[in-house]
């Protein structure tokens, strides 16, 4: 069979991967890419074996006349159709010709002509993609043409071409390359377009670099890995097709040996000499396998996102971890026992970590009483979301609770099985997430998703669930609920989608709502509406909320309690009013000082504060205070581990050895001078991605 002239299937993994690697440094881009590729290549044993095999095959084939024991046409009539013998290591064919000699004599031609398909196909496909990526109109035309090319019966056309030009293998392989370029174009185009839309390409355009110059200097290097991957895969397909053609009698002119022709010869003797099939088939398969292994190793995405539903193997792994936690003797401290109350959440000493041992959240404790709202605040990378997701047992694959307790009505959810959690989720604890559009299933209507959840969680019939769905939508402030039920998620606005997501979360009448930055992706007016909706829901239903946010305005607006998190720890907690008015931990001080909204208009400082540096990576956390490296007040005492201590403001706790001293002296987090490097154009290493309010530098007073 001639495989379909289609993009090789392994691409799905890799199209997304290389762009991120290619984008950032254009100078170093080329070198960095080849480095990455080479690393991936040698990391895969299959690819290394493949490379060795191909190299050995080429060398053996090119030097064949020097060492082969027989000429390809030597006929040994004493050993016709023989199996492996001392004289003929791989046996002989029907004319007594040595199979080993013929395989290696044919190898160079097979590999060489397949290379023609690769060069023509990948070259043309890449050129077309680069041309198309640069101009929309060109893209429309080329895409149309390639669509047509891909919907043609390629084999039949190749055979018709053979009818016209004869069995001129190099020419046929070149035409095959043209047919296959359509598939390659499709694979490369997406990536070429994303490279074209990079900001540095825009900059180059402004600088007056020609479109061709842009393609060659900025787009092509980024495509290098994809091109190599495609080349390897097409190489394999080319060999298979060439062998297939030879098999049906369109190989190189006789008596020149070819792998397909040899297998065809063998097929005539499958009754009396089945061995003949084996050597040539195995060599062909191994060679194709080698090329595929190289392509797949290079194309493998290095950091694919974790699935939200872990695989069965990952679930088994997690079940073991959970069992270990359940088996561990739980510290029976007094307050854990006390409250099997209605909708009380007590998190005790919770640790969450990557399965390889790196901790993301360490020793976090907090309580949420029924009908109250707790805010988890901090910069990105502090472990807020991981903490929140652990409450529902929805940590991403490869991340799990490594210690501590999540006591829900006195029951430890950290040690609950997957099945038990399924009974808790939706009914007791519900989730709303940051991006409402992505949180809803794009393939199903709002009505289907809502009624399915209601029927499942409340055991209602179809009609009843339908009317309840409408009630819920009205409850979250949607006026034309009937119409919205019939829409698909892509047909409604972001704010509307978040209301639907909230309705979905409410469908099981939960008593705790975990809201992971529910307003971050929405524009400001909609944010306020969603917050007041949540406030009303808390009041009406008596449910409690764990609100993850980096926005102190949200905290002030809706939270009763606050836990400020930094680098996987709670550094300060207490009543919202106490923390906002009288912060004790330097990090809280800094967050407030850096927030333009937290300062009154009349005493707005001329320059907002900043927090130097970034949240450290979990593997870089020090044993002492994790904030010390960025703290204006840090001293030698901060090198030792710091416990949570009573902060002196009500029941609040703070993790800072200097908290009392700071409070007594009434020290503020100072707006430091802007570092000189920061003022220079983009050259600085410090310019990290937009880092929320904490890196807001200056505020115009006018």
């Amino acid at each position, binding site marked *: 069979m001639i495989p379909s002239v*289609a993009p090789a299937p392994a691409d799905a993994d890799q199209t997304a991967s290389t762009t991120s690697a290619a984008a950032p440094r254009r100078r170093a881009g080329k070198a960095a890419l080849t480095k990455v590729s080479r690393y991936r290549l040698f990391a895969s044993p299959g690819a290394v074996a493949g490379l060795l095999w191909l190299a050995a095959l080429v060398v053996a084939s090119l030097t064949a006349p020097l060492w082969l024991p027989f000429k390809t046409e030597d006929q040994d009539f004493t050993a016709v159709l023989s199996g492996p013998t001392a004289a003929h290591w791989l046996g002989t064919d029907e004319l007594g010709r040595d199979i080993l000699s013929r395989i290696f004599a044919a190898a160079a031609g097979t590999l060489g002509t397949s290379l023609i398909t690769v060069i023509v196909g990948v070259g043309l496909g890449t050129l077309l993609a680069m041309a198309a990526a640069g101009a929309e109109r060109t893209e429309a035309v080329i895409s*149309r043409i390639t669509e047509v090319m*891909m919907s043609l019966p*390629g084999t039949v056309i190749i055979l*018709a071409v053979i009818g016209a030009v004869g069995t001129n293998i190099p020419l046929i392989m070149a035409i095959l390359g043209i047919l296959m370029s359509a598939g390659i174009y499709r694979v490369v185009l997406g990536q070429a377009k994303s490279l074209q839309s990079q900001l540095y390409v825009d900059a180059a355009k402004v600088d007056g670099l020609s479109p061709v110059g842009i393609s060659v200097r900025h787009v092509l290097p980024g495509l290098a890995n994809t091109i190599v991957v495609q080349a390897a895969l097409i190489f394999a397909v080319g060999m298979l097709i060439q062998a297939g053609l030879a098999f049906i009698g*369109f190989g190189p002119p006789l008596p020149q040996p070819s792998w397909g022709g040899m297998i065809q010869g063998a097929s005539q003797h499958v009754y009396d000499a089945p061995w003949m099939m084996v050597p040539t088939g195995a060599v*062909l398969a191994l060679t194709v396998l080698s090329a595929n292994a190289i392509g*797949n190793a290079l194309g493998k995405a290095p950091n694919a996102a974790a699935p*939200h539903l872990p695989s069965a193997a990952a679930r088994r792994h997690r079940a073991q971890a959970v069992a270990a936690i359940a088996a561990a003797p739980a510290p029976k401290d007094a307050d854990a026992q006390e409250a099997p109350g209605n909708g009380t959440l007590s998190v005790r000493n919770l640790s969450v970590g990557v399965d390889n041992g790196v901790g993301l959240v360490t020793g976090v404790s907090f309580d949420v009483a029924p009908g109250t709202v707790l805010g988890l605040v901090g910069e990105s990378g502090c472990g807020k979301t991981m903490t929140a997701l652990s409450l529902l047992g929805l940590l991403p694959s490869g991340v799990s609770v490594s210690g501590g307790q999540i006591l829900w009505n006195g029951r430890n959810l950290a040690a609950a099985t997957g099945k038990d959690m399924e009974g808790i989720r939706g009914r007791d604890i519900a989730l709303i997430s940051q991006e409402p559009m*992505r949180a809803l299933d794009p393939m199903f209507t709002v009505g289907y998703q809502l009624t399915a959840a209601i029927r499942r969680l409340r055991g209602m019939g179809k009609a009843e669930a339908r009317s309840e769905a409408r009630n819920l939508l009205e409850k979250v402030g949607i006026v034309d609920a009937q119409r919205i039920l019939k829409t698909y998620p892509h047909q409604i606005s972001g704010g509307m989608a978040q209301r639907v997501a909230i309705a979905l979360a409410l469908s099981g009448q939960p008593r705790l709502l975990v809201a992971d930055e529910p307003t971050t992706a929405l524009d400001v007016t909609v944010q306020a509406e969603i917050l007041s909706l949540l406030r009303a829901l808390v009041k009406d239903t008596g449910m409690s909320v764990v609100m993850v946010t980096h926005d102190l305005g949200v905290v002030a607006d809706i939270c009763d309690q606050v836990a400020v998190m930094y680098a996987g720890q709670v550094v300060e907690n207490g009543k919202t009013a106490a923390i906002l008015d009288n912060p004790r931990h330097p990090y809280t001080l800094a967050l407030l000082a850096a927030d333009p909204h937290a300062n009154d208009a009349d005493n707005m400082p001329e320059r907002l504060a900043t927090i130097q540096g970034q949240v450290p990576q979990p593997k870089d956390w020090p044993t002492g205070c994790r904030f010390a490296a960025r703290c204006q007040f840090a001293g030698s005492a901060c090198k030792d581990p710091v416990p949570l201590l009573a902060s002196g403001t009500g029941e609040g706790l703070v993790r800072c050895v200097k908290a009392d001293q700071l409070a007594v002296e009434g020290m503020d987090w100072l707006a430091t001078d802007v570092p000189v490097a920061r003022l220079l154009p983009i050259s600085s290493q410090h310019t990290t991605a937009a880092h929320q309010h904490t890196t807001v530098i200056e505020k115009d007073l006018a």
Partner: protein
Amino acid sequence: MALFVAKRLLMALATVLVVAVLAFLLVHAMPGSPGAVSLGAGASQDAIDQLNQQLGWNDPLFSQFFRWLGDAVQGNLGVSLIDGRSVSADLADRLPVTASLAAGATVLSAIIGIALGVTAAVRGGLLDQIIGGFVGLLVALPAFWVGIILVYLLAVQSSVFPATGYVPFEVSPQDWALSLALPVITLAVGGAAFIARQTRASMLEALQQEHIRTLRATATPTWKILYIHALRYASLPIVAGIALQFIGLFGGSVIAEQLFAMPGLGQAVQTSVSTHDAPAVQGVVVIATVVVVAVNLVLELATKFLDPKLRAS
């Protein structure tokens, strides 16, 4: 939607027309005039010239093409230069053979491929690696080689299936199925591997979508998340992969037809190309294109129907 269908129909028609022109030109580039091909090696130059004149070989290309096109639209694809049979009648006999082969192999490879791909994505771990290795091997094995091994094992060693030949459905449905079994399996091996890879990748991508977490947060049972929501999300690229598979198999069945002596379209191309039978080559190229383009069109419309975003627009 109607506009979309109309546009696609027009595209399909244009595709077939372009291929018809291409086939016509290729056939004219074949070595030897039709007279020479038809009369064989022993014929005199006068006889060849006379036949060429009769067949209109010396007319301008333009008028030859439109004469052919006019006949073709009425279902007449000309007469074979070798045996004088009507090309249309011959292809009408052959089409069901190749259609059964291609359809059977596509269905079989879709079933096996989706099962393997979903299992690999959903089970993960060791099983994923085993399936990955197995699929990688299947991709690398040449179909004709697999076919011969199958013949050796299932027809020579144990005569479960007939080794070669085709029995029409009208003659005996049971023998028809038996005669198709080995060629269909042969063709499906590579196809199943292709679809398995596509399915695994699409399923993994579907499971990375955030709405999967929402579904879990509302206590959706795992089987429902996997087989209703994720598979539905993954279905678009999978269906596209199956369409490509069919296109590949429809022409690509030539090897299975040769190996198992099936009187299908592929065999027709192979023999007519070897014998320089111009009308036959031209006819089979156009017919194969028509079938493939039509199936592609249907599957594309099916894909659009699966995606709410595209359905609405």
